[in-house]
C-alpha cells in the first residue's frame, strides 16, 4: 500500500447523528496505517473541536475527547476554517487542541496539495 497525503474534511456537527464519531474512527485507522493524514474542520464540523463537551449527557461518546486523541495516532496536521469559527463566535482558545486556523485561500492550497480528500 502506498503512503499518501490524505485530507479528511469534517463538516458535520459532533452530535445529532453518528456521523462525526464514525468519521473520526476512520481517521484514527488512517493514522494506524501510517498515511500522511491532515484534518480540516469547517462549517458545523468546527463544533467537534469545542471544549467542555459532555457526551455522557446524551448517552454517547464525547467527540471532543476523540478529537483530542488524534495526536496520539500521530495525526498532528489539524486545521480549522477561520471563517466557520468566526461565524459561530468560537475563539481559538475554546478548542480542545491547538488547531491551525486557515482562511479560504489557505484551505484551497491545503486541498490542492493532497493526493486524496475524503469529504465527510
Amino acid at each position, binding site marked *: *500500500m*502506498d*503512503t*499518501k497525503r*490524505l485530507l479528511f474534511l469534517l463538516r458535520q456537527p459532533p452530535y445529532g447523528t*453518528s*456521523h462525526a464519531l*464514525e*468519521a473520526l*474512527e*476512520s481517521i484514527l*485507522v*488512517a493514522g*494506524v*496505517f501510517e*498515511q500522511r493524514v491532515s484534518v480540516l474542520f469547517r462549517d458545523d464540523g468546527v463544533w467537534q473541536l469545542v471544549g467542555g463537551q459532555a457526551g455522557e449527557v446524551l448517552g454517547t461518546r464525547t467527540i471532543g475527547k476523540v478529537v483530542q486523541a488524534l495526536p496520539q495516532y500521530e495525526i498532528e496536521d489539524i486545521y480549522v476554517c477561520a471563517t466557520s469559527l468566526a461565524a459561530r463566535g468560537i475563539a481559538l482558545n475554546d478548542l480542545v487542541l491547538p488547531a491551525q486556523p486557515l482562511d479560504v485561500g489557505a484551505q484551497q492550497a491545503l486541498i490542492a496539495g493532497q493526493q*486524496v*480528500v*475524503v*469529504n*465527510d
Partner: protein
Amino acid sequence: MIFGIAVHGAPYGSEASASALRFATAALAAGHTLHRVFFYHDGVNLANGLTVTPRDEPSTQADWIALAGAHGVELAVCIAAALKRGLVSDAERERYDLQAASLHPAFSIVGLGQMIDAVGCSDRFVTFAS
C-alpha cells in the same frame, strides 16, 4: 486510471449510492478500473439482503451487484458500521447468537483498514457523502 469509491449516504434516504453507481458505470465504460467500493456510515445499508424494492422503482442494490459481478469489483462493507445497523453475515450471526443473517452474499464484511487500503491502491478516491 484506478478509482476507489466510498459511499457514505443511505441507499434509500439519500442519492449517494445511486450517484456513485452512475459514476462507477461511466468510469468503467471509459476504460478505467474500479478497485473497490467501500460502504461506510449509513451507506452500509445497501448491503441489506432483506430489502424489497417496489416493482416500479429501480433497485440500486441489484444494479450495484450486477455491475460488480460484470467487472470483478469488490463491494466492501465496514464491519463496525454494519454490526451497529443490523447487517450481519452468517459468521457474525453465529458469533453473536443473533436470530438471522441479513447481509447480501454479494457484499463482503471488512475492517476500516480496507478503506485506507483502497485509498492507497487507487489513483483517485471519490467519496459520495450523505
